[in-house]
């Protein structure tokens, strides 16, 4: 590039006043260098656009044979494809299982995340709070396969008696009904592990929002004679409501796409079943892909990619909704 010219004109040295005069003389060439650099940077930005478009296009292209195939052909060509169903009928229970796992894990994780975030933002002393925030971040760093290993070998046997108990006393609730699996490898255990995995992201966002609560509003509540919890209820939570919602949505996005923990823990089934404690009831899209893909034939791969496309669309919608809420919130708080 022409930009190397000024270097050769004088002694080699980094950009400092002496270089200025030389730069001015060779100004034209530098503009060329600047332009190339700007193009490269802009190109990298555009590349993001292309990658995302490519993801969508390639998935559709690869899934196309399955999307257009006759359901009878599919069940002929793919050993695990059920007879007498369309592709939609095959994906349906998987979508159901995916949503169920994500929803239950979210139900477990959100209140705990709000608690932790409040603890680190309003209850714990500042120094302790920072250290604790770091510890929670560590949960996010652990690879999902390690979670799966732990969930399958350690957690499942521990929680199995708890599930027995729930089934015995709360079995009239559909979620806890049915026959409790003796191994604990059920949707409820999966949901617990997923909850632990999405806890850090929800906590981090909630904490950020809680810390942004205007001091003015907290003091207003305090001066009216509010206890600490009442301050949280009057000033912090109303202010943070939309932030909490979007944090939960982002957590949901994570839970929807999580593969290994489900694959390694759940004993799968393909039913529209709400029974969280019974084995062989549900399966998620991601885990199903990971389980079938290595052994699948051409048509099988196309079918799996079609389910992957469905997962992609669902997570895309959830994430976009979450970001939209965040963005609207920014506009709102900017006026404050």
């Amino acid at each position, binding site marked *: 590039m022409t930009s190397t010219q000024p270097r050769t004109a004088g002694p080699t040295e980094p950009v400092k006043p002496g270089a200025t005069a030389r730069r001015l003389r060779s100004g034209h060439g530098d503009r060329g260098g600047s332009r190339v650099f700007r193009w490269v940077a802009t190109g990298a930005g555009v590349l993001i656009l292309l990658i995302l478009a490519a993801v969508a296009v390639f998935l559709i292209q690869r899934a196309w044979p399955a999307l257009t195939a006759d359901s009878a052909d599919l069940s002929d060509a793919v050993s695990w494809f059920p007879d007498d169903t369309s592709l939609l009928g095959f994906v349906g229970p998987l979508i159901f299982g995916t949503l169920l796992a994500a929803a239950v894990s979210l139900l477990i994780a959100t209140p705990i995340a709000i608690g932790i975030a409040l603890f680190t933002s309003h209850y714990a002393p500042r120094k302790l709070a920072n250290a604790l925030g770091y510890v929670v971040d560590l949960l996010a760093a652990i690879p999902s396969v390690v979670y799966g290993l732990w969930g399958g070998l350690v957690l499942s046997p521990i929680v199995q008696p708890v599930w027995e108990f729930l089934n015995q006393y709360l079995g009239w609730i559909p979620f806890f009904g049915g026959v409790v699996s003796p191994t604990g490898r059920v949707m409820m255990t999966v949901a617990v592990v997923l909850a632990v995995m999405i806890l850090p992201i929800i906590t981090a966002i909630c904490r950020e929002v809680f810390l942004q609560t205007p001091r003015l509003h907290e003091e207003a509540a305090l001066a009216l*004679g509010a206890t600490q919890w009442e301050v949280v209820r009057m000033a912090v939570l109303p202010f943070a409501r939309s932030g909490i919602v979007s944090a939960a949505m982002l957590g949901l996005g994570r839970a929807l796409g999580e593969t290994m923990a489900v694959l390694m823990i759940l004993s799968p089934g393909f039913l529209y079943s709400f029974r969280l404690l019974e084995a062989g009831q549900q399966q998620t899209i991601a885990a199903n892909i990971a389980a079938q893909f290595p052994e699948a034939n051409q048509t099988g791969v196309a079918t799996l990619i079609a389910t992957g496309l469905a997962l992609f669309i669902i997570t895309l919608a959830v994430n976009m909704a979450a970001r939209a809420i965040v963005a609207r919130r920014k506009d709102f708080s900017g006026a404050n």
Partner: protein
Amino acid sequence: MAQRIDVKDLNIYYGAFKAVEDVNMTIEPRSVTAFIGPSGCGKSTFLRTLNRMHEVIPGARVEGTVAVEGVDLYGAEIDPVAVRRQVGMVFQRPNPFPTMSIAENVLAGVRLNNRRISKGDANDLVEASLRGANLWNEVKDRLDRPGSGLSGGQQQRLCIARAIAVKPQVLLMDEPCSALDPISTLAIEDLIAELKSEYTIVIVTHNMQQAARVSERTAFFNIAGTGQPGKLIEIDDTATMFSSPKEQATEDYISGRFG
């Protein structure tokens, strides 16, 4: 509904740093006492010790006594939450709760103690408090609209209504007009003049004319230099303070020679 406040040998700390040193003063009931002094002299810090708001800052603590009608607010048996109920506070910038309506804002403090207040009583209290804050006529048609939609001066009067709705003994005001325009300031000053028949009022102000206009007694705080604790220089009737103060520093400050 108003009480005398006796402050004895009060030292205020932020961690190891002594922010205010050795304050002794009596605040008379049913009157307005103004605190004046240069920035950083500790007058706001001192004000916040009068309802134990000071201690919500980590590391902040207080030595000495603040007695209301002989009851030490820092006594062992005293609940700081109850203190803040008896000693209300209005802040520098108006701070209505943005998610609550005007009426809910007024009732915010009352609802803490009395959740099942009847609708009729609640409406009466909202009207009485808003009338007390000279705001009723301006907002009576939009009580269910958010408080953040009001003008700055109206918001500040809403905050005063919210503070008096819980029937405190004392009302503390921390530069209540510093964020307001002159017309709104005048409205607040008129309100203070009316409220002093029922409350003991303490007001911190940077504006000496305001202190002269609204207060019966004036206390002057000063600071020797950065890192030094603030001190109460003198307290006297406002008329005396502004005409013939005993201390040279007070005269210098009031005549605008520094600060």
